[in-house]
């Protein structure tokens, strides 16, 4: 099993997409979407991160399942930290 060689066109396409998405994020920030501004910004950021992880970091092409497990585990535990902490903060005033 050798590391796959990603074609240049794919890399360039991802790069352009990332730049466009960056512009979109900055532009959308000036439009009033209420609370959805944050949601849109984070969704776009996540799409960009996914592109980098899957294509640039070769996670889409690797045959090692373990790498995917490691990435998902780290994100899961981070979500635990953020989620359970926020569970305290968002319910304090309900007492």
């Amino acid at each position, binding site marked *: 099993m050798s590391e796959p060689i990603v074609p240049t066109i794919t890399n360039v396409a991802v790069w352009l997409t990332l730049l466009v998405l960056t512009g979109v994020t900055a532009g959308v920030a000036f439009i009033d979407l209420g609370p959805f501004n944050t949601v849109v910004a984070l969704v776009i950021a996540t799409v960009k991160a996914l592109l980098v992880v899957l294509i640039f970091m070769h996670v889409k092409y690797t045959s090692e399942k373990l790498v995917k497990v490691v990435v998902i585990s780290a994100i899961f*535990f981070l979500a*635990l*930290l953020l989620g359970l*902490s926020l*569970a*305290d*903060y968002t*319910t304090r005033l309900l007492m």
Partner: protein
Amino acid sequence: MATAAITAERENYLNQEYGIKSWLLTVDHKRIALLYLLSITFFFFIGGFFALLIRLELLTPAGDLVQGDTYNKLFTMHGQVMVFFFLIPSIPAVLGNFLVPLMIGAKDLAFPRINLLSWYLYIIAGILMLHCMLTGGVDTGWTFYTPFSTAFSNTKVIEAGLAIFISGFSSILTGLNFVVTIHRMRAPGMTWNRLPLFIWAHYATSIIQLLGTPVIAVTLVLVVLERALHLGIFDPTRGGDPLLFQHLFWFYSHPAVYIMILPAMGVVTEIVPCFSRKRIFGYKFVALSSISIAVFGFLVWAHHMFVAGISLYSALIFSALSYLVAVPSAIKVFNWTATMYKGSITFSTPMLYAFGFIGLFTMGGLTGLFLAALGIDVHVTDTYFVIAHFHYIMVGGAVMGYLGGMHFWWPKISGRMYPESLGRLAALIVFLGFNLTFFPQFILGYLGMPRRYWQYPPEFQVLNVLSTAGSTILAVGYLLPMVYFLWSMRYGKVAPDNPWGASGLEWMTSSPPPTFNFDRPPVVDWEAYDYENIPAPQEARSGG
């Protein structure tokens, strides 16, 4: 068998090369394990010294041995040294480093130089901590709660925080090394379901080290920044929340207690089948329970904060999750006892420590359930009940697991047998001393004696005196092995490859092993804990 009168000593990792440079620049996992052994033993004495002073002060209700500020420093530094410089490294860095490659049939860990770096980081951190202690110490409690630590304490918080930060990296690198090694360097035929459960336990421990330690690292960075620059992140007068510190601190520090206990459980799981001459009961359950403890351990941290001001709803969630985390630990206890049932038990020193572990860990664990109940916690939190609870687990559990493991693998590590009757005597002294020290503390806590107090009402004195008396007996119990282990290196019986008739690849190479572990790379085609097919050791284990 003759003692030192052997013609030519086989080449092994100890005699392959001599000189201090060959030790300080070694990349052999076995030598690094010994470097760690010396270092953590040193810090165990330091932490024990602080414990001794604490117990001496508590002999009398009045604060008459040291001043209040000094007492705060004593319990702080006892905690910090014991947690970060003894318990967390102990089994993984000594026994894990030594045994993981041997048990899986590898020549070394995946990253030998990173292993050495790990030790040097530990030493640098230790020197920093020593300097901190010698130039004034810290008085915040090992928990560093803000805003006292960030705004009011006038002790060396930054230095202590940096020391622990560096020691955290040592821990992370050890965990990283173990995970990669276990995944990528198992010998042919060594499938996951044939791995010794000691390996499963260290794998689970390593996951916690990898995912938890970075959070306390960044938290300490924020504490140092806050203290130096008065930013306000944890300061209520500047809009900050002290509880944020506690959330971030305990997100690591609760899983950290599983870093301290899981390896000891792995040790017990190796000892019990060997001295019951029976395969472990429920291999898959034990393996899975280690992983479960690692995962669930991350879900319960705010049970340290029930009375700190978190919302009632989150307290309820964390309380329920805390009950859940007890289940996999209980599963292990059932599996150990089921293994012993109808086994052929030998009361060797390692087995005595394993028995002690099972009993004392169970008590400590059950009292954890008391603490997980919100109502009871309000009464006993921040009292000696909590102190007794965690010492039952850390000392009655982890330290006894460590000592049991040291005795079990001492022949493999040193090539010598320790004197068995002294070993059993010391185990008994440790057990008795431990119980006399810490059982009265459950009662004291329930009666209302607060923790971290240097004075107490006179009616608590009798129990405190009992506890102090117990601690001196415990100290003797700890000193004995250090003496006879050293003695055995010169005068102990030469150990055969497999003195216990134990299963596992480490027993199929010489005692001590050669530098590259095996003369020929092993190929595994048998199941773990194959005790039906392993003969009991021929030589009767008589007292030495």
